[in-house]
């Protein structure tokens, strides 16, 4: 039984990371209605930036903070410079191609700027395990960070004027423009926030293993897609729940299902398939009503 629980907590440890990237994906989807394939690679760049700062002697917490600010600005700039010019075009697939182009470009640029050798990211949390269940302290730390992230996001979206404007833009861009909201700024804000969230997630996940390289975020991004789809793309709560479920399901499947060894990636995808067949808009997603 203790094996079961330690696997569950392992899963939660990964799930928290998936959840925070999924949160970033959901944030962009809610404001701009598109899926950002480059989210992981943007986070990768931020992660390398954090690592570079710590290598210069900055403490890790401060480095993550600086990286968040820089990522926020970079994310907002990306929206303004790369995304917006193609978004108004007739073909909605164009934005997808742009994010795919960014995916390719950022990954290879990161390798060029920061080298291809694996690097070690210092951890924000103390090493070691806690209690009889062998819970990693970092798992608890990650959980706390995720809770703080959610709380701040909730406060921002539900309790501030800016948040109200953000929600207005995502629900009806045309009308919100008419009541005087600067929709362009809101879109930039959404992308900036997502990039900052990605910076946190990347910096924390990089510290988990033994060194990271440019492939760090690719698997994470896939699991986060799974988490976001599971929860429903327009629901931040769904993203968190989805990310955690995917993480735990993966950990348990590795432990208990022999046939799945080496192909654990199947687990989140089968999960999505089953959930979407029952609830086509995810667990917490809103149903889109079509008017005729």
């Amino acid at each position: 039984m203790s094996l079961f629980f330690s696997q569950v907590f392992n899963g939660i440890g990964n799930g928290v990371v998936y959840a925070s990237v999924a949160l970033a994906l959901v944030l962009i989807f809610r404001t701009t209605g598109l899926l950002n394939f480059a989210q992981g690679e943007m986070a990768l760049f931020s992660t390398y930036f954090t690592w570079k700062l710590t290598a210069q002697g900055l403490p890790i917490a401060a480095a993550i903070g600086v990286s968040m600010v820089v990522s926020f600005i970079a994310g907002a700039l990306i929206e303004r410079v790369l995304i917006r010019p193609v978004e108004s075009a007739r073909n909605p697939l164009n934005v997808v191609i742009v994010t795919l182009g960014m995916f390719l470009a950022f990954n290879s640029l990161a390798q060029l700027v920061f080298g291809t050798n694996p690097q070690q990211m210092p951890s924000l949390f103390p090493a070691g395990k806690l209690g009889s269940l062998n819970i990693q302290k970092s798992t608890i730390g990650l959980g706390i960070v995720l809770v703080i992230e959610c709380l701040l996001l909730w406060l921002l979206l539900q309790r501030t004027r800016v948040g109200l404007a953000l929600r207005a833009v995502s629900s009806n861009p045309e009308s919100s423009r008419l009541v005087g909201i600067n929709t362009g700024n809101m879109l930039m804000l959404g992308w900036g926030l997502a990039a900052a969230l990605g910076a946190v997630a990347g910096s924390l996940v990089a510290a988990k293993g033994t060194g990271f390289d440019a492939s760090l975020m690719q698997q994470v991004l896939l699991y986060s897609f799974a988490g976001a789809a599971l929860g429903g793309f327009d629901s931040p709560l769904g993203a968190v729940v989805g990310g955690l479920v995917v993480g735990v399901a993966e950990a348990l499947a590795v432990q208990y299902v022999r046939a799945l060894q080496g192909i654990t990636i199947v687990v989140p995808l089968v999960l999505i398939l089953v959930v979407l067949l029952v609830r086509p808009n995810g667990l917490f997603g809103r149903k889109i009503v079509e008017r005729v």
Partner: protein
Amino acid sequence: MVVPTAPVATTKLPTASGRRAVPWVRLGAGLAVLAVAIYLPFYYTPEVNTTLSQVLYLAVAAVGLNLLTGYNGQVSIGHGAFFGIGAFTSAVLVVNHGWQFEYTIPVAALVAAGLGVLVGFPALRVRGLYLALITLGLAVVFPRITAKVVKGTGGVALVRPARTDLTSLINGLADDQYQYLLCLLLLCIVLLLTWNLMRSRAGRAIIATRDHEVAAESVGINIAAVKVGTFALSAAFAGVAGAMSVMVDHIADATNPITYFQLSIEFLIAVVIGGSATIIGPVVGAALLVLLRKQTAGLITGKEILAPAVLGGALILIVYVLPDGAVGGARRLTARLVRGRRGSGGGSGATPAVASPPLTNQTTT
């Protein structure tokens, strides 16, 4: 990702007047291009011919994806899986069962179509972004399951017999020339099928389903049949492309888990940069993509790591300059030229049907 709902202005729908006016210029140009395409393998070296064959199979897969994503509005980023199952069907039949390659092509198409139906049914429930994600999952899962299931000679990677073992029907041709011409023939068949389909009642149903599902249903179109059918046909084309790739590259390989995901992305890129919902667009896109990839790979010596960055940058640039793809851009250009000469936009073949309501033919006389 946004669900494509707006009618794409470049979509061609046949009209009575459209059939009357046979575009002789176009027919002539098409025949000229075909003649050049047939001559090419006798001009270039075997290496170039192999690359050209790769363009052709990429084009077949892109035409298939265009049918689904461009014409029917179901976004798939998992067509690599259909491509892969076609490739493995062909490879297993040739290597383990001693089939002649040419006979494996229809089998590959059928198997891929079967998988397409399997995916098409759940796809009825979900749409847009969620569908894209399910297909993405398919592309990611495919190589891992294949790696477990297929225990062919040499483990996972099924290598084709040496090139000399390929019994070609026409002995006068070198293998690379024969392969190229077979690929060209298959592409022509696929293009002809697509062209005819999109001019038919079924083709109009496919487009109507994309433009407005509820309206399409209310005029008596069986949405489920159209969607699943399109999925199956699209998958079959991708399967044929996979079989072609086995002939050209002599390998069906599932050892690299992201190969088929990358392929899926490449198909989508080919469709979009060539021009989605056009017949010839995906072919142009496939050629552009391979050209870009070849050119960017050797562009900066010593900094090979940068090649994907250049490719990515080039893709973004193309989308900027040609938002409706190369074919759409060319159409706009000719429309402008023709209009300039005639003084009105009426007679051009590409007048964008702005704000035309769904289900009315966008006149493209």
